[in-house]
């Protein structure tokens, strides 16, 4: 599929453009013809190689770029538009971006793992560069000039004598229905006009003026409103309910029941809410007490059967015998995505075809799951991504999409809008998994780490759809689909073991992943997956070791790190923070430092922080944070800064406040009172983000890189302020106070 030149009959017949394709490619890529396994084109072009899957230019010059990734509030759509405009050599405003839609865009799986820029951004960058070359070659033929004589600009190819041929004029037939080449002639970063600049986000004006910006704002003609009545807890069975009174309530259109799936539909939204409340009160459930003891969660987790794998081993018997060995155990509770807007979907069943609008992270996997649940072919289901509230991973989006589809099938032709209530989002979203890590390390006589042992116990970090069984509605219907068997996510990305392998250089090291298949609580991907807890653990422990060695934390990290870009990030953060060896923070305050390279192959991030601890109350407050980030070639510096600022504040909230609570039967953290998060009184005075730009280097993504370093930096600052090391997340006021008083 990835031959260096692909000319099918249709494109040859389509005319001049296609002929030029063969001309332009033969010279440039002749050397590839002899190499039997042709190298794949970069990014998602490897899976979706045709250029017209990524870019379209109409006869009137209108330019559309397509991506299978979704805008989740991370600013991806703007960055993507910058990349397309840059490599096509057109103004930013002249590109329109179409995002994830199973009828229009490539299958790029999930928008996750900080991979959008790396996969999709790289694909459109190369596709745009190759399209531009095709256009130049076409113009060269028309003008009877050599390609080298031509320039591009403002959406046209320009001859030395000033003659211009607009891109729209040059497009012929299926000119771009050719496979991408492995290599593109990308622009020199020094000449960038659009990339590398803080272009304002395209979505913000509508969002701050009340424009229709979210799936929650969709209003289709004849649309009705639905609400689900979820079971009170996992595994609860619906015994029955008295429908008569509810069916008579104003506006009620239908009660939809299928096994343990229960929903109500009404003409107006608040009528649906009132009917849902009445139906929930009327429904009788049989519940089972099957949740673990929250107080002993680490014991529960490490006591469950696990599949144990040594994922990394480094051994150097010549390393000096240990002078000092220390051990520590770190824990993380279940934590919620906690989207501010509860999940929402719109679905319509029309002429045996289902259309679902969803804020899912994966339109294709979602389509597969919904088709399986409805027992129809995938081709009869269309999934269209529409932006929702920020998700930070696998929240209730896919479940809401399945709910809406199931309800819509009961009402043929009628568009159904389904929105979860706050309590449903909090109780039923798949949480970020609880984790336990045990670390043990030795220092040699020179205060260097001679031996490092890292063990992590964790569930998988993805129970995303693909099959129907991943969705609540499919689990709850009378003929249910079982949740799929969990699998550990493969390295080098990893799941529970993401960032468990040290980036530092240790002569002896061993990392064991204890993968726990049993899932006492419903879990899936939460921003950064296992990297949040693993980096919190490892970078806390690095500080413990530095203290044992009598070394400065920054100096101690640099001593063990060879990676040049990693060192640059650490040095930049330390310098910008004003970090000085041995310096004391003001009374009641502490300084902390942490560093990681996300997934050990994505963006670098180092964070220094200053935290104030009230010794009477135990309250910790982040006063200021300074971050340095290296995400490769920067596309939108302000977007990158925004992502890292957000990562620091969100991770601070996880780290200081958040844990899902439950009794033996039900989730009990069901709103913002029972699951408190960051509020403005705890917002830092200052957050500075410094970008280390790497012109021409691959995009490394940025969405998740800050989560782990922020947590460890804050934990280290608390230890510095109090002299006490806290290892159990979250680092609550009570835990800090107890540690101070101990």
């Amino acid at each position: 599929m990835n031959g260096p030149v692909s000319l099918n009959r249709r494109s040859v017949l389509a005319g001049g453009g296609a002929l030029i394709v063969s001309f332009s490619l033969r010279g440039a890529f002749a050397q590839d013809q002899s190499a039997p396994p042709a190298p794949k084109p970069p990014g998602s072009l490897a899976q979706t190689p045709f250029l017209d899957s990524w870019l379209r230019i109409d006869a009137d010059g209108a330019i559309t770029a397509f991506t299978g990734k979704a805008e989740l509030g991370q600013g991806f759509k703007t960055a993507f538009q910058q990349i397309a405009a840059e490599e096509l050599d057109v103004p930013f405003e002249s590109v329109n971006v179409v995002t994830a839609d199973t009828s229009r865009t490539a299958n790029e799986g999930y928008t996750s793992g900080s991979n959008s820029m790396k996969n999709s951004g790289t694909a459109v960058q190369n596709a745009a560069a190759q399209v531009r070359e095709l256009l130049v070659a076409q113009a060269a033929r028309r003008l009877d000039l050599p390609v080298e004589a031509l320039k591009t600009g403002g959406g046209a190819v320009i001859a030395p004598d000033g003659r211009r041929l607009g891109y729209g004029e040059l497009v012929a037939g299926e000119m771009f229905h050719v496979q991408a080449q492995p290599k593109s002639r990308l622009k020199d970063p020094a000449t960038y006009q659009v990339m590398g600049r803080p272009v304002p986000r395209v979505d913000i004006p509508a969002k701050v003026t009340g424009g229709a910006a979210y799936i929650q704002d969709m209003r289709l003609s004849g649309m009705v409103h639905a609400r689900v009545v979820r079971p009170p807890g996992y595994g609860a069975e619906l015994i029955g309910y008295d429908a008569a009174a509810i069916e008579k309530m104003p506006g009620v259109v239908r009660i939809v029941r299928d096994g343990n799936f229960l929903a109500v539909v009404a003409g107006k939204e608040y009528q649906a809410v009132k009917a849902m409340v009445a139906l929930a009160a009327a429904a009788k459930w049989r519940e089972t007490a099957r949740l673990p003891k929250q107080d002993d969660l680490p014991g529960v987790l490490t006591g469950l059967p696990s599949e144990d794998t040594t994922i990394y081993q480094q051994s150097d018997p010549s390393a000096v015998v240990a002078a000092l060995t220390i051990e520590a155990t770190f824990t993380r509770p279940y934590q919620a995505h906690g989207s501010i807007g509860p999940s929402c979907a719109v679905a319509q069943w029309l002429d045996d075809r289902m259309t679902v609008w969803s804020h899912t992270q994966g339109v294709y996997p979602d389509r597969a799951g919904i088709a399986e649940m409805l027992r129809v072919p995938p081709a009869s289901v269309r999934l269209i991504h529409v932006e929702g509230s920020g998700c930070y991973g696998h929240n209730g989006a896919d479940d809401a999409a399945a709910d809406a589809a199931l309800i819509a099938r009961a009402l043929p032709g009628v568009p159904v809008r389904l929105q979860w209530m706050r309590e449903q989002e909090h109780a039923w979203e798949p949480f970020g998994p609880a984790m336990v890590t045990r670390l043990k390390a030795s220092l040699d006589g020179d205060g260097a780490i001679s031996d490092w042992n890292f063990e992590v116990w964790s569930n998988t970090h993805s129970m995303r759809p693909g099959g129907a069984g991943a969705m609540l509605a499919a689990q709850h219907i009378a003929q249910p689909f079982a949740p799929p068997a969990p699998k550990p996510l493969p390295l080098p990305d990893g799941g529970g073991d993401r960032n468990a392998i040290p980036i530092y250089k240790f002569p002896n090291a061993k990392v064991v992943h204890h993968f726990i298949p049993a899932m006492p609580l419903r879990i899936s991907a939460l921003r950064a997956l296992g990297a949040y807890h693993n980096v919190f653990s490892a970078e806390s422990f690095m500080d413990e070791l530095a203290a044992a060695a009598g070394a400065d934390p920054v100096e101690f990290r640099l001593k063990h790190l060879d990676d040049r870009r990693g060192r640059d990030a650490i040095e930049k953060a330390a310098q910008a923070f004003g970090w000085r060896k041995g310096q004391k923070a003001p009374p009641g305050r502490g300084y902390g430092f942490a560093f990681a390279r996300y997934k050990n192959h994505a963006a670098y991030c180092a964070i220094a922080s200053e935290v104030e601890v009230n010794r009477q109350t135990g309250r910790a407050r982040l006063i200021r944070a300074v971050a340095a980030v290296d995400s490769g070639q920067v596309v939108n510096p302000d977007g990158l800064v925004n992502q890292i600022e957000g990562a620091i504040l969100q991770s601070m909230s996880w780290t200081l406040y958040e844990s899902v609570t439950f009794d033996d039967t039900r989730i009990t953290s069901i709103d913002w009172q029972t699951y408190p998060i960051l509020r403005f009184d705890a917002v830092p005075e200052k957050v500075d983000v410094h970008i280390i730009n790497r012109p021409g280097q691959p995009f490394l993504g940025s969405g998740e890189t800050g989560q782990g370093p922020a947590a460890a930096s804050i934990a280290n600052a608390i230890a510095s302020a109090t002299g006490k090391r806290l290892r159990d997340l979250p680092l609550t006021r009570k835990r800090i106070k107890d540690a101070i008083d101990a």
Partner: protein
Amino acid sequence: MMTLKVNGQDHQVDADPDTPLLYVLRDDLKLNAAKFGCGLGQCGSCTVIVDGKAVLSCVTPLLLLEGKKVTTLEGLGSIEAPAPIQRAFIEEQAAQCGYCIAGMMMRAQALLQRNPKPTDEQIRAELEINLCRCGTHMRILRAVHRAGRLMQTADASPAKGSIQEGSIQGSMP
């Protein structure tokens, strides 16, 4: 049928008197800005202004609004002619997902209307009830300060569309 004054216009609303204002705004009047976040008065994403005060529309029933003036984000300005606070949020790029932002802006607007020069502490105290999950707080604070300055300038008319690169905060070597 009840008359509800929203953004300077009278609307005849056919909804039960116990219906929270939020649902009337979104479902009956087809306004997008006020958002459902919790329905419990805990997050602030539904915030609108009623007679000059910030109000949680998800827990304010219609029957309490007879004769009162409701203002939503749509009533402050438009994408073509943004109000100072809208300009400020655009210029500071003070949003990630943006779902909470309309509520933040309305509470900040109410504050700025009674106190044009709030301190940082006063802004934080005022916004305490509003939750943001993306961690956009630093930008929100900057945007509220900027909005205060913009509202005070004699000519706060919008400089259409474009924003200056110099307005973007954060360090970019």
